[in-house]
């Protein structure tokens, strides 16, 4: 079996990224849209760590940690917005979230 | 084959480090079996000890003094009809107990029973342990949701909120212990479980006594958080029988229910192991630095054998005191055989201790050393397990808001304070 190179990881990252983008663009449920964003962030992280390995230094890993921190913040705020929205509109459907003000 | 075993016993690294997948697998199997047996034993001891706290006898019928009761229970649970509610989410309902079980058992890969008696010595051992044990909450949440019923849902929300919030205080207490590992000449600490114990060995002090009372405080915080983390009394709100019938596993029955119990007890042992590793010197025997003469080594190496001898003696006394009525004949024989078995193990251990005294490289010496490590580790864990039972017998249950109040308003500030003070004291001391 062929050895695993950085490119292999990048392909996995790209696949996850595209899946995440598809999820963000086509799903109606906001919760799943937020999950798709997590997929995208993971794809990016995988690339960063793979590049870190490729270059033989740790900057990529440190960046990955920053992105995980960012993902935590994003999830907290995103789900907070979702809860606030759900309380007012009783829906988690992106198609119905089309007002700037309610 | 003996050469193979010898060569392994001669090695001083974990199978994971040596890259020896075969021995790693053997270790995993041994640990899986050992933990399952420990859970069964814990089940019996809990029922007996709790019963004696409460002026009753506990199980007495199945086997002498109910010794076979856990096995009978296990068989009964396996044979029981496995009910999945019609309105439940079938797949998630099926998979939820497995998540909890997986999380509870995966952490054992990094628990060091001795300097080389672990599956693997991960560089991020303690982080891995906290992370994986926090996955157990997923099983609870998902089980409550999948049951599609009110009581399990409330139980799941309760217990997940509880586990998540106590993890914070727990993590900070752990960090203060990790900070202590870095207080050596080079100033570098470690997250590896084996490294943490070795740091205690090098610094010549168990972290519970380091910077007294800071280490003790951290241990107390951890000990409280770990009760909440494993949903045991007085923080057993998730399965508060009188309020929520059985909390998140109300709808479960049979084998699936027993998997929840198994993972709960396995998680109890796992968190106790963390506490022992971080603060109580892991596998080290008492006073390894003060009393380090070979004679002392020999005396302490007798302890495992003597313990089993004591257990055997207790079993023998039990046999002798059993009523002589013919009704008890089989039970008497059974208990006598059990006592003889314990006595045989005791004899084996004592022989090994004596044989391994002189030669330092012999098989017996290596065996003896390993037994010593595991013995002291298990003994320390057993103390925590007994405390779990004791708490359960003594205290009423907290209410949910009180639990949250304690977690966020008491434990978190104290653990933060302990962390900061530890850091300051450490800087001053170095």
């Amino acid at each position, binding site marked *: 079996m062929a050895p695993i190179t950085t490119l292999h990881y990048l392909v996995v990252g790209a696949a996850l990224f595209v899946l995440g983008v598809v999820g963000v663009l086509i799903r109606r449920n906001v919760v799943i849209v937020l999950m798709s964003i997590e997929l995208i962030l993971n794809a990016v992280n995988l690339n960063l760590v793979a590049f870190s390995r490729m270059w033989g230094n740790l900057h990529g890993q440190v960046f990955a940690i920053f992105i995980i921190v960012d993902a935590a913040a994003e999830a907290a705020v995103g789900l907070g917005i979702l809860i606030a929205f759900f309380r007012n509109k009783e829906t988690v459907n992106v198609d119905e979230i089309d007002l700037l003000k309610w | 084959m003996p050469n193979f075993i010898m060569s392994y016993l001669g090695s001083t690294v974990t199978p994971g480090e040596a890259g020896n997948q075969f021995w790693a697998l053997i270790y995993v199997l041994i640990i899986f079996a050992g933990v399952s047996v420990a859970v069964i034993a814990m089940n019996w001891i809990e029922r007996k000890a709790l019963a004696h*706290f*409460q002026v009753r006898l506990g199980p007495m019928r199945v086997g002498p003094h109910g010794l076979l009761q856990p096995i009978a229970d296990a068989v009964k649970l396996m044979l029981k009809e496995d009910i999945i509610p019609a309105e439940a989410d079938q797949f998630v309902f099926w998979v939820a107990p497995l998540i909890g079980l997986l999380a509870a058992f995966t952490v054992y890969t990094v628990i060091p029973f001795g300097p080389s008696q672990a599956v693997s010595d991960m560089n991020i051992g303690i982080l891995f342990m906290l992370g994986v044990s926090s996955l157990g909450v997923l099983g609870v949440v998902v089980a409550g949701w999948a049951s599609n019923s009110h*009581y399990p849902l*409330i139980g799941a929300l309760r217990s997940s909120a509880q586990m998540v919030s106590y993890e914070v205080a727990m993590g900070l207490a752990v960090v203060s212990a990790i900070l202590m590992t870095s207080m050596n000449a080079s100033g570098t600490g470690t997250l590896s479980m084996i490294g943490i114990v070795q740091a205690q060995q090098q610094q010549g002090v168990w972290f519970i006594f380091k910077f007294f009372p800071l280490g003790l405080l951290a241990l107390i915080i951890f000990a409280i958080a770990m009760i909440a983390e494993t949903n045991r009394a007085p923080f057993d709100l998730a399965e508060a029988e*009188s309020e929520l019938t059985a909390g998140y596993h109300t709808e479960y029955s049979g084998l699936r229910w027993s998997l929840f119990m198994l993972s709960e007890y396995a998680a109890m042992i796992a968190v106790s192991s963390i506490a022992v590793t971080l603060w109580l010197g892991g596998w080290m025997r008492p006073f390894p630095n003060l009393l380090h003469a070979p004679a002392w080594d020999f005396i302490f190496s007798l302890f495992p054998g003597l313990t089993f001898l004591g257990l055997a003696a207790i079993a023998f006394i039990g046999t002798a005191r059993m009523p002589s009525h013919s009704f008890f004949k089989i039970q008497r024989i059974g208990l006598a055989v059990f006592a003889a078995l314990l006595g045989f193990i005791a004899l084996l251990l004592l022989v090994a201790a004596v044989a391994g005294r002189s030669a330092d490289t012999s098989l017996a010496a290596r065996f003896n050393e390993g037994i010593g490590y595991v013995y002291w580790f298990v003994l320390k864990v057993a103390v925590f397990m007994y405390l779990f039972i004791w708490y359960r*017998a003594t205290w009423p*249950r*907290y209410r949910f808001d009180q639990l949250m109040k304690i977690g966020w308003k008491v434990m978190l500030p104290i653990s933060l304070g302990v962390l900061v003070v530890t850091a300051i004291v450490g800087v001053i001391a170095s």
Partner: protein
Amino acid sequence: MNDPITSRANLDLDTPDKTYLDSNELIINMGPQHPATHGVLRVILKLDGEKVLGTECVIGYLHRGVEKIAENRTYTMFAPYVDRMDYVAAVSNGLGYCEAVEKLMNVEAPPRAKYIRVILTELQRIASHQIWLGTHALDIGAMTPLFYTFRDREEILKIFEKYCGARLTTHAFRIGGCQYETYAGFEKDVKNFLAFFAPKIDEYEALLTTNRIWVERTRNVGVISAADCVALGVTGPVLRASGVQWDLRKAQPYAAYAEFDFEIPTGTNGDTYDRYLVRMEEMRQSMRIIEQAVNGIPEGPIMGKVPKVIKPPVGEIYHSIEAPKGELGYFIVSDGSTQPYRLRVRPPSFVNLQALDIMVRGLLVADVVAVIGTIDIVLGEVDR
């Protein structure tokens, strides 16, 4: 005065509360099969998260029509039935019924019978409070007191068994006095029990009274004011814990209670912790009463002058006693025949249970079980 009954917001269980759109109200059926409802009580809880917005008790799962049965039985035949109402305080039930019929017939039990009645009734009060303590503590999560109280209750039941042959539904008394003379060694047994039990109360208290968790779980939980208690007709330890010094043993002495010296413990806050303290003190006071009674028990007959066939004159009577759970009253209408024309029981549990809704509003689910425990209901009595 703010009438608690009319000011109660109606509990609308069908339409969800629209105050907040997010507040997913949960309607939860607590019971009739639930470990903490002390039998077959069904409490419909309306919850906002864990907060109780309102409750509705559904009772009747144990209804046996005791009052109707009374109309088809002679006065003597009906006496054992009352034991099945509050089955953990059967002696008290029997006392109330026998005294009511005696009052209706205008006969009186002889002094020795009255003393025996007091001793057994007070023992039963202790036994009933023990069951309350054990189950209440178990509801709050303390397992161990349950076993301690049941161990000690056993001694009381042994005395009952020796006295009348039954442990639970004793049917100890008869109209006009007592059926059985005390057995040899009765006084000694009772005194032994008193000596045995005095340290046991301290043992219970050592486990609970200053236990931080216990205090946190009970203090300021299920508070009910004295005015609300009076308005709802709540009696017994619940009323006394709210600060009203009302005990029928003192207020309208029956049996031989006028001759004994004892105190009525009262609380101040009317919360669960006060009710706990009041009941613990009541056990001690009961021991005082028993001690006085057993020391001063007079000699003499144990049966008053009662005809073989009990035929009370036409009339009606209401007589009530202080049962362990509160005022236990019997209203008997006689048409001059051997059977009551109508018999109505005023069960303390039934009346006290009304206070549940007021006590638990705004509290959490966990407090509901604590409050159900502290009201000390027996469903046999609630449903009759």
